[in-house]
């Protein structure tokens, strides 16, 4: 199983019945492919839709029905559309139960940086800051390390996305939560040892007695 699939499948296990879920661009988008059978959740697209469905069949795409990246999507029966004020009212107002976002860095206290590399990449934060500030639960889905460098850092040196700590980070190597504001290893990826996780984790991380393997 490749890294992205591991991450997406594991994040999908965090979905709960009836959840209103916002998925960021990139790995988070893949989560929609692994919703457990029989589980009903709503996906929101922040450009103005609840009830996003899969990519439409050939010839069924409509130019006025897209995801936040401008790519054609479909809408499920019972979908609802709205303007951007409503969309961010839902996000900021705590009506979104779960958001899954990509990350550049997550630190030992659960703070996320994911929108800017000063002097290099300044695309803008789009909806990320509102999502992290407002969603009931925030999960970051990202590779554990990039170019051999840990993305789970002691302290973010990139600009923060929010002062609010995230709830969970799911990587291709581990699941980490932040109880009491401290990074804690919850699970390891299949075939990955705790020592291997620690070797590529810059942040200090608590290791409970029992750290099961992800069940994918």
């Amino acid at each position: 199983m490749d890294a992205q699939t591991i991450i997406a499948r594991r994040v999908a296990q965090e979905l709960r019945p009836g959840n209103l879920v916002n998925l960021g661009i990139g790995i988070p988008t893949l989560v929609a492919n692994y919703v457990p059978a029989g589980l009903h959740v709503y996906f929101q697209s922040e450009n103005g839709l609840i009830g996003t469905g899969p990519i439409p069949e050939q010839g069924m795409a409509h130019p006025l029905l897209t995801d936040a990246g401008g790519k054609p999507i479909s809408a499920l029966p019972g979908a609802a559309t709205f303007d951007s004020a409503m969309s961010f009212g839902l996000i900021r107002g705590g009506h979104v139960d779960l958001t899954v976002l990509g990350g550049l860095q997550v630190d030992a206290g659960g703070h996320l940086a994911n929108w800017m590399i000063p002097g290099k990449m300044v695309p803008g934060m789009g909806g990320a800051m509102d999502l992290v500030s407002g969603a009931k639960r925030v999960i970051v889905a990202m590779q554990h390390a990039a170019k051999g460098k840990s993305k789970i850092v002691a302290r973010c040196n990139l600009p923060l996305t929010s002062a609010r700590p995230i709830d969970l980070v799911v990587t291709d190597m581990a699941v980490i939560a932040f109880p009491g504001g401290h990074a804690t290893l919850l699970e390891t990826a299949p075939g990955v040892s705790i020592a291997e996780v620690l070797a590529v984790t810059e942040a200090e991380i608590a290791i409970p007695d029992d750290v099961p393997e992800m069940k994918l």
Partner: protein
Amino acid sequence: MKAVSLEEAIAVIPAGASIMVGGFMGVGTPERLLDELVRQRKSNLSLISNDAATPGKGVGKLFDGAQVTHMIGTHIGLNPKAQQQMLGKQITVDLIPQGTFVERIRAGGCGLGGVLTPTGVGTLVEEGKQRIDVGGKAYLLETALRADFALVQAFLADYAGNLSYALTARNFNPVMAMAADTVIVTAEHIVPVGVIAPDHVMTPGPLVDYLVANG
């Protein structure tokens, strides 16, 4: 409301004007108005738009011809030209969170001086802003935003200027239609009064200054 030609509609916009343009990654953007802005070579524009779209599409067209000198938006990462012009300091760009962006415009349109949002507290976004605590929680004061012109794309417009929008093309259009001194609209379909039921009108006609007649 006045029905005008495309050329007349854009002719009212002077160089140096501030323009709000609806759309999200070019979806729900009034492409014909942008094409005409390009054709009439309007320059030194202050653009208020969610994103910079992509080259050749939506507001991206304005960066192709370097017609923008200042932009307020939330994301320009998918338009390399806008990125280059920002990093090369040919244009200045204020990047702000998307929820803050739309609330500032809504405040401008609804006569509010601003709103208190938790978004951006403790981040770079807080710089230069007033932090206000309400009920023990910290918020930033984000002030109202208006423009000289709003360029709006509707799906249906009736002869009286009532507008409705389709699917994800609604986005910022109805909010911007309230927040500018002059509102210019193009519509995919212009229909008789009554075709849009009162409950389905999303922008009432009295908000519209110019409706561009279809060709």
